[in-house]
């Protein structure tokens, strides 16, 4: 189960990076801002999940 969650978390980070790259290609402008935040939020969620998984592996979190 932990492995599946880890794969999903890594996939979330990868999706975030793809969104950042595709929208970032438009340049830093008002139109790209929501997409950039979306990509950043996806990466943040993925990293949050990975940190929880790592803590679960080290036994500090259920």
């Amino acid at each position, binding site marked *: 189960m932990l492995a599946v969650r880890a794969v999903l978390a890594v996939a979330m980070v990868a999706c975030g990076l*793809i969104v950042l790259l595709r*929208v970032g290609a*438009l340049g830093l402008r008002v139109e790209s801002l*929501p997409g950039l935040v979306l990509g950043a*939020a996806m990466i943040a969620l993925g990293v*949050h999940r990975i940190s929880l998984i790592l803590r679960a592996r080290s036994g500090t*979190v*259920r």
Partner: protein
Amino acid sequence: MPATSKPELRRSVTPWGSFSWGYSDVGADIFVGLGLVLAAAAGASNVAFLFAGIVYVCIGLAYTELAATYPVAGGGQYFVLRGLGDVFGFIAGWAVLLDFTIDITLFAWTCVDYLSQLLPVLTGSAHPWVHFLATLGLILGLATLNVIGVRESSAFNGVVSALDVISETCILCFGFLFAFRPELLVHSMQASWPSPYQLMLGTSLAIISFVGLESISQAAQETQRPASVIPRTSIALILTILIFALAYSNLALGLAPQHPITDAAGHPIQFWQLFPNNGDNQGKAVALLAERIPIWGSLAAFYVPILGAVLLLISSNSGVFGSSRIAYAMSKSNLLPSIFQRVHAKFRTPAISIVAFGGVAVLELIFAAFPSLHPDATILYARFFRNESGLEFLADLYAFGAATSYSFVFLALIGLRLFDPLSPRKFKIPFNIPIRVGGERAEFPIVGVLGFIGIFSILIFTLFTHPIGRIAGPSWLILGLIGYFIYRRHRGLPVFTSHKRDWRKEQVEILRGAGELELMDEYVAAVKASDRRRLEAKA
């Protein structure tokens, strides 16, 4: 479930249960909000969601900190009562109650809208009476189930939430991979940028996609070791909801479907142009988007209306359950008459609260549906309310109630940080300024101030752009306050000031009840040290 004796809720909710509890409530909001925002903010819908989303993240962090520090079911009303006193606690609770009653009607209404995608006989514009009766039937059915004491299980919530997260992830992945064109997004935004008025309207409607954070505190009441579990599940919930809202709005503006979309005259239009002046489409936006996604869309066309309807029904039910629970908590705090604490002799449920607030929900439904049921009323609504649709009326009040209660929650967060610095906070919002208040070290939350400015501006937008909301919302608060003052005077309680309470004793009880014994010891030690310092300073 409240009982006649001292009620105790069983703490059996797991971390996933805590997440799915919140998700089944807040996750349904995008099903309602997407169409309304696309209709109002057009090419700037994603910007409206971004602004509301940033404010929502601040609100979510505030709820997470407060729910982990004070894990009681009263939610926003309890935090405001404790941080700002009885009068403001009543206003916040009364605004939350308005939101819960709207929640019942709005989500039952859109549940029928989503089902109309598969059953055209339920379409509101073509068969207004069928739509009205179906919505009324859902509200009465949910109220009856709650009076009897039947609730959906947390396992059912978990399954529906998991299915929805998987479904929405698939829709968005396929959509962004095969149908999203960044250059079309830019074109939509540049060619259809709304007026400032429409942008404010869209932003005030976007906040309804993020309402339901009361569920975090309700879950905290029933979660073992909430101070540890709530922060991590809440952060995942906040980010998930934010991602879905931003992703849907970006996708809707940059969607290049396989088959061209045309208007009634056969002219090609973009996807988001399906929504302005079309109440039927506004109520089922996610289903319309899902069916236009390449590959996945042919499957999504069948299951998304059903999944959406189930999620919306759960959310509507949380309105019935939540309103009775908030009324019970307010009654216990002497903010509402004790009648709202009474439980049914046979079913042991707060039947009076359920019937009372279910009745308010039915009145709201009648007001919302009246123009479509009675053509003469359309003239009246057009004259006084700029011809708002039933769905817009409900959304108006929903946004007003949420913005009001969240504004007070931010003030309560600041107040509690300054005047209750001894309560242990296992999760603390970052970016604070250390200060000293009354000899104690406290931390002033910058995010709390920014969040308050954000939500207060949304409240101003709501009052400015919603013709019904700016009348009905404040009227609800004023009527409630009049009732509150009469009740407090009748009971011989302080009318404008607060009833004396021993918060220290209550905090110890709360932490003990939550199983947070280490935090309880930490709190008791901090209180003793503080008392000792005061005595030494006096000496």
